[in-house]
């Protein structure tokens, strides 16, 4: 009997109970190298398997059939097969071979990029990462691949859907770096600047023994988003930042730090001049759009400052003080800021006067109370999680063996106090 047909029969016969699947898995592992050598014959085998019932066998054969580089024509055939498999496969079966599943999903990502249709991979990768996750706290390598496709396809809202999960389990540091960096970009695209800052901050302050390229790029965006969101930036990194990052990040991001210094002067002309001089640098980093948002934010910052001094002001006066070209431009800025909730004001178009108002939020609506309550609940859950993690680490053998060597402990009993002086 043809060995491939024999294997097919075993897949069809051993895909029901968990003991059968364990036996099948052993057979498939042993046949893995041989399957790759038969890659040209495997497409026909796949048609005889049901991906929802024979998921494990289908996975091994699918993965073996995708060795080497593919042409666009081959990708056009493979993408629907992989998509259908991801959509219908059994979660329990694919979790028996997570590396194989990851490999297949990464091939899907590569092929949709080759076809210049990243959007075709967005939904399948979302399904795939949810199947691979053992819990919502588990960060898989597929998270960053999914976010990468969302960025390429400009599906920012779809990407946002996984960024609200709290991550506690990470497989590889690279997964976390990329998840937070791409996630930060997704949030920038959705103008969720505070969330973007948190994610980019995580990359910059993550443990690293050598300076990481992802952290360098994240720091550049972190500087820009800080200026946009907060109107300021400090080069001081938290104490828990790695020394590799503390020593090196600034060296790789000097033009951005100088941009922040220029922003700090509050002078539009100076800032615009600096941006113009260094435009090529920012463009080569694909950050010029964000830099332009930084410049716009200075106008907004200056308008916001006016609300602290004036109750009413004419659009002409606003234009003069903030150095805009015309009252019309001032009106556009003020309107946009009102719409974005950055100031509270009304514009009287009859006399060109802007009246600045107080924040109407009284913090006593039902919605606000619910929002505060849910924040409190979330913080309490996080606190419990941290206490439990701290206890686990305190009992971890590896941690104790290394940390114990670094610390000398002194106890009262260690002091040689003569008996006659003891209380």
């Amino acid at each position, binding site marked *: 009997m043809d060995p491939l047909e024999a294997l097919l029969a075993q897949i069809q016969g051993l895909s029901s109970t968990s003991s059968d699947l364990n036996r099948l898995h052993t057979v498939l592992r042993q046949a893995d190298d041989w399957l790759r050598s038969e890659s040209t014959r495997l497409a026909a085998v796949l048609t005889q398997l049901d991906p929802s019932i024979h998921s494990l066998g289908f996975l091994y054969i699918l993965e073996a059939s995708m060795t080497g580089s593919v042409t666009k024509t081959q990708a056009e055939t493979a993408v629907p097969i992989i998509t259908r498999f991801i959509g219908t496969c059994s979660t329990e079966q694919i979790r028996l071979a997570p590396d194989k599943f990851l490999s297949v999903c990464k091939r899907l990502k590569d092929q949709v990029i080759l076809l210049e249709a990243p959007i075709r991979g967005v939904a399948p990768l979302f399904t795939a990462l949810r199947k691979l996750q053992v819990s919502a706290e588990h960060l898989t390598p597929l998270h960053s691949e999914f976010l*990468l496709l969302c*960025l*390429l396809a*400009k599906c920012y809202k779809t990407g946002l859907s996984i960024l609200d999960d709290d991550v506690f389990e990470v497989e590889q540091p*690279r997964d976390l*770096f*990329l998840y937070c960096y791409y996630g930060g*970009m997704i949030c*920038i*695209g959705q103008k969720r600047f505070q969330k973007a800052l948190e994610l980019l901050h995580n990359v910059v302050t993550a*443990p*690293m*023994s*050598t*300076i*990481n*390229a*992802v952290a*360098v*790029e994240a720091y550049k965006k972190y500087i820009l988003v800080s200026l946009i969101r907060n109107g300021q930036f400090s080069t001081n990194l*938290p*104490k*828990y*930042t*790695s*020394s*590799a990052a503390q*020593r*090196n990040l600034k060296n790789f991001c000097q033009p951005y730090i100088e941009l922040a210094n220029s922003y700090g002067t509050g002078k539009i002309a100076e800032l615009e001049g600096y941006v113009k001089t260094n435009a090529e640098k920012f*463009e080569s980093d*694909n*950050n*010029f*759009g*964000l830099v*332009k*948002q930084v410049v*716009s934010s200075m106008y907004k910052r200056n308008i916001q400052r006016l609300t602290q001094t004036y109750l009413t002001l004419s659009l002409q006066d606003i234009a003069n003080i903030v150095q805009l070209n015309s009252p019309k431009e001032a009106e556009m800025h003020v309107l946009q800021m009102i719409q974005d909730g950055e100031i509270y004001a009304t514009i009287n178009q009859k006399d060109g006067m802007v009246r600045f108002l107080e924040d109407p939020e009284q913090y006593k609506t039902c919605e606000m109370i619910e929002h505060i309550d849910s924040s409190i609940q979330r913080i309490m859950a996080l606190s419990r999680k941290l206490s439990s993690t701290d206890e686990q680490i305190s009992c971890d053998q590896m941690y104790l063996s*290394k940390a114990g060597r*670094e610390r000398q*402990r*002194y106890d*009262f009993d260690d*002091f040689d*106090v003569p008996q*006659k*002086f003891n*209380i």
Partner: protein
Amino acid sequence: MSLKCEATFVAILREKARKMMRAMELFSGEMDEQVSSMAMDVDDVDPLEIFAEGVIAADNKLADADFFNSFQDDFDDSDIN
């Protein structure tokens, strides 16, 4: 109590207090270290390097330099109508 006994008693109390103060200084130094050790206070050595395996590479060599970052610059608001 005679003057001599009183003096001896005071000397004993002073000696005890001195030893307790010395012990407290050492012990409270340990406590301060505990309070501040949440942050990485060591200047020269990255505390995580204590846990790291292997040799630390030169600072100018970037790890993960091959990561995908070729995205179109989509954050220019001026092209939004």
